[in-house]
C-alpha cells in the first residue's frame, strides 16, 4: 500500500481537511501520474457501482471514439442503422398482427363459447320447458275420484277440500293421519292423493315412494301408478324413466291412460 493510495482514499472518502485537500489537488494538477492514479480510482467507484454509469463526454477526441463515429457516419454504418430500423418495424408489425390474431382468436373463442353455451342452455332449458309443458298438460287432478263419495268420513272430506284448495301440506297431514288410524290395509285412492300432493309440494322422492307403494299394492288401481310415476319423472325432467313407465301403459291397450301414454311418448320423441 503506497502512501499515494492512502491519500487518494482519504481524498475520495472526504476524510481530508480543507487544507489537505488543497495541497492534494495541487499535487494532482502538477503530477500526471498522480492524476492517472486518482482517475482510475474514480473510474472504479463509478464503473463497479451497479446503479451508476460513467459518462465520458471528455473522450470525444479519443481515437476509438473517432473511429466509432467515422464508422457510424459511413455508408455501411448508415445501412446497418437502416437494417435495425427495418427489423424493428418487422418485429413490431408482426407482433401487432399476432396480437390482433390472438385478439381475434380470443374473440372468436368467446363467441363460440357463448354460442355453445347458449345452444346448450336453450336445448336444456327447452327440453325442461317441454317436459314441464307436457306435465302441465297431462296432469289433471280434477279427475281424481272424490273421496267424499266413499262415505261420510269427515277426515277424508276435509283432506280432499284442502287438496282442492291446493293446501297440499295440510292435505298430506290429514291423509297420513287417516291412514295411520284406519284399519284398512291400503286405500289406493288416498295413496294417489298423497303422492300427487307430494308432487305438487316438489317432494318428488316422497311422491315416488307413494306411487311405488300404489304399484306394489294388490289393488285394481295398482297399474295407475305407472301413469303417476311417468308424470313425476316428467316433472323431474327424467325423460327416460318417464318413458319406461309410459311404455308399460302403451303396451297394454286396456291399461289406464293407454291412449294418453301413446300420445305422450310421441310428444317426447
Amino acid at each position: 500500500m503506497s502512501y499515494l493510495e492512502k491519500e487518494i482514499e482519504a481524498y475520495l472518502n472526504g476524510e481530508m481537511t480543507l487544507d489537505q485537500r488543497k495541497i492534494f489537488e495541487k499535487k494532482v494538477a502538477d503530477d500526471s501520474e498522480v492524476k492517472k492514479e486518482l482517475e482510475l480510482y474514480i473510474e472504479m467507484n463509478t464503473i463497479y457501482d451497479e446503479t451508476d454509469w460513467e459518462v465520458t463526454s471528455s473522450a470525444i477526441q479519443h481515437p476509438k471514439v473517432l473511429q466509432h463515429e467515422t464508422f457510424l457516419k459511413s455508408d455501411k454504418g448508415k445501412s446497418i442503422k437502416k437494417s435495425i430500423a427495418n427489423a424493428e418495424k418487422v418485429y413490431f408489425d408482426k407482433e401487432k398482427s399476432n396480437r390482433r390474431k390472438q385478439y381475434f382468436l380470443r374473440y372468436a373463442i368467446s363467441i363460440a363459447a357463448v354460442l355453445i353455451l347458449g345452444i346448450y342452455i336453450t336445448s336444456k332449458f327447452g327440453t325442461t320447458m317441454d317436459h314441464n309443458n307436457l306435465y302441465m298438460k297431462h296432469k289433471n287432478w280434477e279427475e281424481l275420484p272424490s273421496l267424499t263419495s266413499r262415505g261420510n268420513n269427515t277426515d277424508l272430506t276435509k283432506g280432499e277440500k284442502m287438496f282442492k284448495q291446493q293446501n297440499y301440506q295440510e292435505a298430506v297431514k290429514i291423509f297420513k293421519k287417516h291412514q295411520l288410524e284406519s284399519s284398512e290395509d291400503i286405500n289406493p285412492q288416498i295413496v294417489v292423493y298423497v303422492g300427487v300432493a307430494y308432487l305438487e309440494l316438489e317432494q318428488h322422492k316422497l311422491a315416488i315412494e307413494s306411487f311405488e307403494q300404489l304399484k306394489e299394492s294388490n289393488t285394481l288401481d295398482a297399474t295407475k301408478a305407472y301413469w303417476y310415476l311417468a308424470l313425476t319423472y316428467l316433472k323431474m325432467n327424467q325423460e327416460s324413466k318417464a318413458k319406461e313407465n309410459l311404455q308399460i301403459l302403451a303396451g297394454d291397450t286396456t291399461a289406464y291412460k293407454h291412449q294418453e301414454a301413446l300420445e305422450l311418448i310421441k310428444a317426447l320423441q
Partner: protein
Amino acid sequence: MTNKEYDNYLLKSLIEGDSSGIVEIYKRIYPKVLRYVCSHDGAEDDAKDVMQKALLLLSTRAQQKEFSITTSFEGYFFTTCKNVWRREVKQSRTRVTNDKVIDLIHEEREIALAAYEQEKWVLFQEKINQISENCRKVLKLFFNKLPYSKIADELGYATENTVRQRVFKCKSKLKEAIRSDVRYKELKEL
C-alpha cells in the same frame, strides 16, 4: 443449428446489417429488455430506444477485428441493453440537476461515446473477475455502497476495521490489474 452456430449467426447479422437476423434478436431479447426497462423507471418507448441504440452500439463495436463474445450472445446483448439504459438514466439525471443547457450531441457521437464506455466497462468487469474470489466479494459489496459494518456481517469479518483494510488491499490489487492491461492504456491515451 447448435447454440454456438445460432449465436454466431445473430452476431454476424448484426455486423452485416441483415434485417432478418436482427428480427431474431428482437424476438429473443426484446421482451426481456422491455421487462427490465419497465422495472427500472422506464416505459415501453424507452425500451424500444434502448434496443435500437444497443444494437447499433454492438454492431459498431463488433466491426473491430479483435471483438469477440465468450459468453452467450443473448446474455452479452442483454447486458449491453442494461448498460445503455443505465447510461440513459444517468444522463437524464445529470440534465435535470444541471441548470445550464447541455448541447445535445448528434446521435453518431452519442453512440460512439457509449460504445467506448461500454468497452471500458467490459474491461473492468473482466479484471474484477480475475482477482481472488474473496477480494471480488468484498469489493462488489463495497462498490455498491454497502457500509463497512454490513460487509463485516455479510462476510463474517470481526471488525469494520478489518473490512476497511481488506477493501484497501483488494482495491490496490484490482487497480494494478487494470492499469497493467494494454487495453486500459489504449482506452486512456489521447
